């Protein structure tokens, strides 16, 4: 007799857990749909102004601020000379390149000294942000725009801090040494200045280079990689950058500016103490701190995302590589959100506290746990007969459909705006990868992200090594 009420209570609990998961899923996807709707007018606005005529007006304009390009490098001997050359030859009226050798052990510094004819100079800059010990500062005899810093290993954030200290100009662009920045990307990134808008930081698009033809560091023929892993990531990047981040422009600014390509006002970076050297996602951490700083200072400077400046990056082509990347990203997300928990629903931070932070907390950080809970709850419900097979399958179908619809819309936005993939083959590949993303890839990345919780609890702060095929090789 006692078993019956317990059984009924369990059934009722399962029923409401299922309902909760459905409600969570509907809310989350509605928010993505909102981001998409907000991104459309933003994208059109940028697309109209991004054409060559306006860009031409910028070339040679003395009023756009000089920019310091910060390039942290760790064991990049094979590519460092070519990457630095590509940064030095970016189209921009006035910029300098600050390379930081983060205690490389493969001869990165020697390669730089030899090719760029570096000579040691005194430490002529004040250390506003503390960093690991700097061994020497160098300038180039042949490239006046180049400054190099040789320092002891301290991680990416620490290297960026050393570069921020040495940067001469009031705006700094953080890039990865292994990122291909398009020649006119800096000019495009400077568009807010042309329009007279006050900005604290500008983020831009990162695209997947795998499968594309790269000649002398320039992506000459963008293509979608036919292999499933890089192919699906191409769709993921399109979705993330074309509406995921663009939509946030109208909601107070995203919490993420890619570490591979982001412009910051130096005075704000220095005011918040530079990058967090201990973080594995220093790019997210710095943006949250910047949001908080701007809010507390009552500054009118904004954090924007611009879709047309493009940097190309290589994505993992093996599950092992993908695991390292996604596990680290999610671990960084957990760590950053937890360390800034005071922001959540805090009226002092306005939209950051009531929209952006809760979204990243519930929609990103906790999403893997809720998704697994959903799989378990529906499995048990199905087994116990709380939910029928039809209902469960329909729910799965709807959840797959939402993902597909959002990916399709990312492709639509790409087609109506910048259209970097003109061939019909690439067009159909993008649709194909949008379809298959939900079958296998999603579950695999879910598993990777789940492991990050355990690693976070164990205080694991490793980055993991990214396996690369090399730009010219993948073409």
């Amino acid at each position: 007799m006692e078993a019956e009420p317990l059984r009924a209570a369990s059934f009722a609990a399962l029923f409401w857990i299922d309902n909760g998961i459905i409600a969570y899923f509907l809310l989350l996807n509605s928010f993505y749909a909102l981001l998409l709707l907000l991104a459309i007018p933003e994208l059109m606005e940028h697309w109209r102004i991004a054409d060559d005529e306006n860009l031409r007006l910028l070339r040679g304009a003395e009023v756009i601020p000089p920019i310091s390009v910060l390039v942290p490098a760790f064991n990049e001997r094979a590519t460092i000379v070519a990457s630095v050359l590509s940064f030095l030859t970016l189209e921009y009226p006035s910029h300098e390149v600050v390379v930081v050798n983060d205690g490389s052990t493969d001869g990165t510094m020697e390669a730089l000294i030899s090719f760029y004819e570096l000579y040691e100079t005194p430490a002529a800059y004040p250390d506003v942000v503390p960093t690991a010990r700097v061994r020497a500062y160098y300038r180039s005899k042949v490239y006046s725009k180049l400054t190099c810093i040789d320092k002891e290993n301290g991680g990416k954030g620490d290297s960026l801090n050393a570069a921020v200290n040495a940067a001469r100009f009031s705006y700094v662009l953080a890039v990865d040494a292994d990122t291909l920045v398009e020649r006119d990307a800096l000019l495009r990134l400077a568009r807010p200045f042309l329009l007279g808008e006050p900005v604290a930081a500008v983020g831009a698009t990162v695209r997947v280079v795998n499968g594309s033809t790269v000649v002398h560091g320039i992506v000459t023929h963008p293509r979608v990689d036919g292999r499933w892993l890089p192919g699906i990531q191409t769709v993921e990047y399109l979705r993330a950058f074309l509406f995921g981040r663009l939509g946030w422009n109208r909601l107070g600014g995203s919490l993420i500016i890619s570490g591979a390509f982001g412009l910051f006002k130096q005075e704000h970076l220095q005011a918040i103490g530079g990058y967090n050297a201990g973080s594995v996602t220093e790019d997210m951490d710095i943006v949250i701190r910047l949001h908080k700083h701007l809010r507390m200072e009552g500054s009118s400077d904004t954090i924007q995302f611009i879709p047309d400046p493009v940097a190309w990056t290589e994505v993992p082509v093996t599950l092992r590589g993908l695991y390292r990347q996604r596990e680290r990203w999610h671990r960084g997300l957990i760590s950053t959100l937890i360390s800034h928990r005071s922001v959540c629903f805090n009226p002092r931070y306005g939209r950051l506290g009531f929209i952006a932070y809760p979204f990243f907390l519930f929609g990103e950080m906790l999403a893997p746990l809720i998704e697994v809970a959903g799989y378990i709850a529906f499995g048990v419900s199905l087994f116990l007969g709380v939910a029928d097979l039809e209902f469960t399958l329909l729910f799965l179908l709807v959840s797959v459909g939402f993902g597909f619809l959002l990916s399709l819309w990312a492709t639509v936005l790409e087609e109506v705006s910048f259209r970097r993939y003109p061939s019909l083959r690439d067009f159909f590949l993008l649709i194909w990868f949008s379809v298959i993303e939900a079958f296998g890839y999603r579950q695999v990345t879910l598993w990777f992200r789940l492991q990050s919780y355990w690693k976070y609890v164990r205080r694991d702060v490793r980055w993991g090594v990214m396996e690369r095929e090399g730009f010219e090789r993948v073409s």
Partner: protein
Amino acid sequence: MTRFAVLVLIAALQLAFIMMTLALLLVTRLRGSRWRAREDDAEISLAEPLQRIMLGDDRGEALAAALGRLRRDAATREMISIGGTRLSPEQRAGLALLVRRAPWVQQTLAQAPSRKWWKRMEAARLLVMVCDKGDVGLVERLVTDMHAAVASAATGAISGCANSSLVSAIVGGLPFRPASVRLQQCNALRSHSALANDAVVVALSRPASVAQLRAWIQLAEVLATPEALAAVVPLASHADREVRTSAARALRSCFSAEGAEAVSGLLKDEDWRVRAAAARAVGALNVRGAIPMLSEAMHDESWWVRFRAGLALADLSMAGRAALEEAQGSPDPFARDMATLIRGLSDGSRLDLTSA
């Protein structure tokens, strides 16, 4: 409604959206291909008349007629492209006369009061190609547009119809333009320096806000006429540091004894930004008499002042370089380090940094 019914409804809506999105994608692809084909056709149809006008066989009648046969947007785009890059100013002016009354030109220019900025920008771009003396009002409206892209695009039309009232309106509006548009408009006013000169001298002699003074000093710098720069000299002692910095920057554009004296005096300014700008100006104006002050500036507390002073000394003949060498042997580590940095640069790198 049961939860199953809710899901069915969502699934149905979703399916409809997916089908619509797929259809939209295919239509976008097809339209894109057709649009490009039409663009190619437009270009092909203009190739022969364009060749004739470029060879001098025709004054543009055939090209004007070919443009008239295109859709309005295509004709506007082609006119902007052809006029901007492929025709000489005389050929462009001739073509502008022929198309000025064409319906497609009138329709595009009629977009100038549109609420959509991209339509106003299209009108501004076409106006640059077809502007005549009667368009003063339209040009004034567009160059003072609140959207920077529109004001920027219209700036090219100033030269087609500038008169004293337009120039005065532009000069008066300079402080309210974004920095990049302001610079463009200052450069455009250089072609009408007589009109602009009078306007800026009057403006600088009146009491004005810091923002106004900075904008007008920038115009004086771009014009670089003795009269305009003479009006800047008194502002080197203005109470606001931004005005003094702008004055130091402007005064380096053309040598005058008063200007050289004023910037030399600014080497002792209380603000480091002003001192750095003054050091740069002293180097650019080749004021050899300021070498002792620059040597002193090598011990300045600001890195930027030491940097600019070092570069200026390196530019100031043998005496300047000797002073730099002396600074390298100085017991002051700041002066010594800066002198080491500057002396290590190749001539090309140094020139590059001096002009940066």
